[in-house]
């Protein structure tokens, strides 16, 4: 069997920039497990990204879009009333919800759409769960005048109808996926099928830090703007680094974006928050890092939720964006070496945090981000008032109000 080469250490001997390796491995995790029919396109992407990531024009265009189109930097906000109510560590929120389109997803779609442009592709495809990545992809496609097709599971289309309509208004075609569990993983399968069929003119914008190499690396690179800003803002606003970072993990792009620039800061603890759904003990959850084992799905080796026969099992979460049986391979590696901690929050706990964010801070958090908030509050309560944590408020929750109302028996 595969054994890890990197061991748990004090991390001072790890060169974080050496991961992934040239073939996309984070030790045993990651890699490029794709059908030969896709390897040509993946190879083109690897070569293009290797060149463009050090291309000054490309980077300048990316930075300019983040500033003038997304509205970055997003604030690091001191949630004083909530902190007081909790009575522990100072809670800071990284306000990715204030980005254009309302979530961190746009950072990545701008980066990948620029890649598409530099590679001469005219058509964009994307998969989406909660619809945030779909909206972000449709947005950037509209702005760049590209055709856009978004694959979305039938179940997710039903529970995220506002985002479906937003995508359509933006000119994207939303294709309903009715195979398998009809959620995010099936949308991803369908997007891969489209890509393999239309490789010549199509760029596949994957929405999270998963998939075959180089996706986990390039999505991470585009999302690290979150952590780079947060690190600088923490120093400027508080004179020091935070004691802990907290972010929700579905595929894990907002979490890796926040964590990565802090990896070498050994005193900064990291908590990735998975969806415990109805409870980890019920089996009805979406927590591969907490409860899964390593396997291969969607192009990479990583922790997965599968059964004894290696079949992927259905996940459960109130939050469509966390309802995924895999996770980005870098998180799997950070878990194995012990650099980040992975925990889980139930649907009920997330809903409580959703309401608390609104009542204490006047902020509507996405259900995904509400998982991070719920754990952040738990963690802060165990800490001292002179300590501080940053919770990534990865997206806004306007899209979720229909779900919340339905759960509470309210007809809008």
């Amino acid at each position, binding site marked *: 069997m595969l054994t890890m080469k990197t061991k748990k250490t004090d991390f001072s001997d790890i060169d974080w920039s050496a991961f992934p390796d040239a073939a996309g491995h984070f030790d045993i995790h990651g890699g490029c497990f*794709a059908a030969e*029919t896709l390897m040509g396109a993946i190879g083109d992407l690897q070569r293009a990204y290797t060149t463009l990531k050090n291309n000054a024009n490309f980077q300048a265009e990316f930075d300019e879009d983040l500033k003038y189109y997304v509205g970055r930097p997003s604030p690091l906000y001191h949630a004083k009333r909530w902190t007081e109510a909790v009575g522990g560590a100072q809670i800071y929120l990284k306000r990715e919800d204030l980005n254009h389109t309302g979530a961190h997803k746009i950072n990545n779609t701008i980066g990948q759409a620029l890649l598409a442009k530099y590679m001469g592709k005219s058509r964009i495809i994307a998969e989406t769960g909660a619809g945030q990545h779909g909206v972000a992809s449709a947005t950037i496609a509209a702005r760049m005048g590209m055709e856009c097709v978004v694959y979305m599971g039938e179940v997710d289309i039903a529970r995220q109808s506002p985002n479906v309509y937003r995508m359509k208004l933006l000119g994207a075609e939303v294709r309903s996926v009715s195979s398998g569990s009809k959620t995010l993983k099936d949308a991803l399968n369908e997007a891969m099928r489209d890509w393999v069929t239309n490789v010549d003119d199509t760029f596949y914008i994957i929405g999270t830090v998963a998939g075959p190499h180089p996706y986990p690396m390039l999505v991470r690179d585009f999302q690290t703007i979150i952590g780079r800003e947060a690190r600088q803002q923490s120093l400027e606003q508080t004179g020091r680094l935070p004691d802990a970072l907290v972010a929700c993990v579905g595929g894990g792009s907002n979490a890796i974006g926040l964590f990565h620039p802090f990896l070498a800061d050994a005193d900064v603890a990291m908590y990735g928050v998975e969806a415990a759904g109805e409870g980890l003990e019920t089996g009805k959850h979406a927590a591969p890092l907490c409860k899964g084992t390593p396997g291969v799905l969607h192009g990479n080796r990583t922790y997965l939720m599968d059964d004894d026969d290696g*079949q992927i099992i259905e996940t459960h979460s109130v939050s469509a964006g966390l309802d995924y049986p895999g996770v980005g391979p870098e998180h799997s590696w950070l878990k194995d070496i012990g650099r980040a901690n992975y925990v889980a929050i139930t649907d009920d706990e997330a809903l409580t945090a959703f309401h608390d964010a609104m009542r204490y801070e006047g902020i509507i958090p996405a259900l995904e981000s509400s998982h991070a908030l719920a754990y952040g509050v738990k963690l802060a309560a165990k800490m001292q008032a002179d300590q501080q944590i940053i919770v990534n408020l990865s997206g806004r929750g306007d899209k979720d109000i229909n779900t919340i109302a339905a759960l509470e028996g309210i007809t809008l």
Partner: protein
Amino acid sequence: MSRLALRFATLKEQNKAALIPYITAGDPVPTFTVDMMHHMVKNGADIIELGVPFSDPAADGPTIQLAMERALAHKVSLTDVLAMVSTFRQQDNETPIVLMGYLNPIEKMGYLAFAKAAAVAGVDGVLTVDLPPEEASALALILQQHQLDRIFLAAPTSTLPRLKKIAELSSGFLYYVSLKGITGANILNVAEVEQKLKAIRGMTDLPIGVGFGIKDASTAATVGGIADAVVVGSVLVKHFETYEHDKDTAHIQQVVGEVLLAMRQTMDEV
């Protein structure tokens, strides 16, 4: 000599291309598969490609996806598939069997445990769709140690250096995917295929099978004229869909047998 090598050698002497039908193990019900395999041999199959059900077959089109869903409704596992091969071998010790599937069930069983069990069951070759050469060395070595052939895909988009790598790792035969896309997609372009096969033949003496997009007997015959083997899947598997309405496996067996036989006869006429 392995069953695959022997079969290809025999066919070469007869100046024939191999006909390789694909079915998904356990589709539409687990009890049907072994009978169907024997029936396909009777109707002209030289080698059988047996699909191992997987919940997320991202490289397959809707026909094969549905086949896998039907099999998984009966919880058909990799262990069950190997048991089917064992049963088949009680009556047929000549027809080579290639397992085609995705990596995760093999990862779950463990490479070594899988290779041992597959060799004991009478499997001849293994094609793992989502395992490109770059990631394949560990599994390929273990398969080789258990005398199991390593079948890899080559695609229209595979560059020459990639084709070389694929040819080096392959044994038994090399599987050329004749079009861009998923299983069951468009009709292939014969001239394009012929050109690519020429390039591949410059790198390997292995027999080359061509699959994806072969939908009728005349295309099978044309491809059989330029390749060493013709792989047909979706065109057969779509006939399994009627089971949902009539629960009639005998009908499936008859229709699929007829389609195969027509292909065999047309291929042999050329």
